[in-house]
């Protein structure tokens, strides 16, 4: 498997394979069809030419209508993959996502289900400023009825996207814009991941770095730096943020006794809070140090490059958090 693909290609393959296998898989969103170039980054390129513009539907700029159309089709048994271009634009569709997609199964007593995937991208680093880069995964994870998924490699993007599409419940699939073009091993076509399963990407005995999405690559770099100083970091990629894989997370931290959670969302009330709260309870008395959290600075995402860089968690931030657990 020496072929390399980037995230865009991997997600495109996943959509393509899922659509080829199952007529019920649909794609909709702004500019997703080929006359509109398959989206601003081309993630859905080629699909409408293959599967038609009724199954791959470019829509008006109307996120509530997009989500509503996806929910309605899902209720009747289709498996729509709806794109909300950027995560900040979920804010105009929250009613559809939270009050409807997440709850219709429960409120109908199990009569209607919503096997829907919401694709959305985000991430600071490209100078897009305050309204285009937020990480809001904690909101969705706090909502019963939703699953939240994010990949850290192209191959995982493929397998996790396939898993979201196959899942009977609404899944939010978060893509990182600044790393769209990063290459990785090509996925094995047809692989469907299991949701709710984390992956240990690097084994280590001294500290667990728990992360997901783009910051996994930071953790991998940091782990090598730490290794030079004799600290062996284990890296756990959550892959599914909600429901997260408690067993894998706890096993790793039980082994290492130290934990740093890293994400790009701002720290307060973020995903790291939940994981830390869980671990201090589960592993009380066996931790060598408090669970540490590393996230972005608590501010809106700034535009100017030096501010944007300072806003994001740095390698140094992770390293000093790790070192603080050895004091």
């Amino acid at each position: 498997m020496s072929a390399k693909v980037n995230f865009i290609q991997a997600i495109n393959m996943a959509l393509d394979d899922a659509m080829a296998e199952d007529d019920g898989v649909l794609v909709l969103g702004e500019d997703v069809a080929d006359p509109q170039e398959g989206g601003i980054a081309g993630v859905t390129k080629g699909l409408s030419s293959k599967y038609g513009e009724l199954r791959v539907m470019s829509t008006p700029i109307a996120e509530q209508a997009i989500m509503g159309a996806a929910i309605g089709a899902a209720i009747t048994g289709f498996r729509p993959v709806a794109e909300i271009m950027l995560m900040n634009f979920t804010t105009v569709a929250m009613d559809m996502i939270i009050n409807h997609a997440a709850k219709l199964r429960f409120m109908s007593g199990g009569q209607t289900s919503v096997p829907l995937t919401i694709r959305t991208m985000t991430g600071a680093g490209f100078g897009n400023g305050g309204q285009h880069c937020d990480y809001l995964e904690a909101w969705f994870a706090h909502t019963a009825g939703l699953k939240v998924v994010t990949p850290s490699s192209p191959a995982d993007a493929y397998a996790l996207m396939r898993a979201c599409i196959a899942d009977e419940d609404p899944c939010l699939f978060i893509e990182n814009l600044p790393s769209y073009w990063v290459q990785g091993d090509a996925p094995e076509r047809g692989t469907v991941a299991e949701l709710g399963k984390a992956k240990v990407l690097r084994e280590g005995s001294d500290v667990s770095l728990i992360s997901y999405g783009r910051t996994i690559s930071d953790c991998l770099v940091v782990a090598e730096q730490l290794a030079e100083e004799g600290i062996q970091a284990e890296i756990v990629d959550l892959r599914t943020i909600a429901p997260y894989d408690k067993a894998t997370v706890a096993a790793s931290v039980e082994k290492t006794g130290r934990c740093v959670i890293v994400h790009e969302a701002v720290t307060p009330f973020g995903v790291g809070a939940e994981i830390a709260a869980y671990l201090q309870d589960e592993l009380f008395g066996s931790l060598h140090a408090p669970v540490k959290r590393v996230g972005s600075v608590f501010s809106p995402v700034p535009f100017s490059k030096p501010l944007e860089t300072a806003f994001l968690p740095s390698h140094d931030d992770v390293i000093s958090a790790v070192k603080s657990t050895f004091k």
Partner: protein
Amino acid sequence: MKETQQPDREVLLDMYRRVNLIYQNDERLRSAIRSGKIATTYYSPRGQEVIPAAVSVNLTDEDYICTIYRGVHDMLAKGAPVKEIWAEIGGRATGTCKGKGGPMHITHPATGVMVTTGIVGSSLPIANGLAWASQLRDDKRVTVAYFGDGASNIGAVHEAMNMAAVKKFPVVFVCQNNGYGEHTHYSLSTSARQISDRAAGYQMPGVTVDGNDPVAMYVAAKEAIDRARNGDGPTLIEAKTFRFMGHVLGDADGYMDKEEKKQAMANDPVPRFRQWMLDQGHAQEEQLAEMEAAITAEIDEALAFTLSSPMPDVAELKRDVFAEELN
């Protein structure tokens, strides 16, 4: 506008049966609530009976509706089972949704009651999705989205109407204009001379009709439903009516124009329809009385069924959150 055939005798009788069912159901439900037999917040559709009756005689079980918190008339007209509706309102395990949804979220896919929402305006975007599914399946189903005059001012409604028009979705938007949204009069919240005027902005046929006039309402509904079924796209129907019982049961109506209300109630569409049926010779007194008695019996049964039904088990909290039961 092409000449639509007036409803024939059979259809009129069917409509009257649905109107009377809604009427009796409402009277009985209010008294069950007032007497404490059933505990619920209740948004009475009293005064609006004719609208969904005239719509539903043009629909089959295969056709879909999405309705709102003030929607029990829409469900009953569509044929959803009285017993299970009552049991749901009573919070019983035997309700349409096992008591988990309650009156604001009654769902009954077998009769096409696909979504009931408590969020103003949110029935329309989801209706679009049901209609998109019908296009995909080419199954000639029609979807009806009910909403209120107050809802016509919220964003989701606009997004949904535009998308439906662009995509020629087989959907009919039925605005039940009862003159008020909660405590606010139409004139204070809605800038349109009449709501159907907004259809032109979507190049969609729009019509304002006396929703309390069975024949006029039937004709408007039939034309719109035929149009949708023939693939000619959506229609906006504004059905003018009145809300006899205020916004919510117990509402003191202090904000309402007394004279307006008095006149509307003097013009009660239910006895008016009945009298007209007799006057026109479409029905005999005994025939209607017999029909009404059967309905009374059906409601008796629904009440008894509800009161004798068990409450749901608390284990239900773990079910239907996701497809897989939580532990």
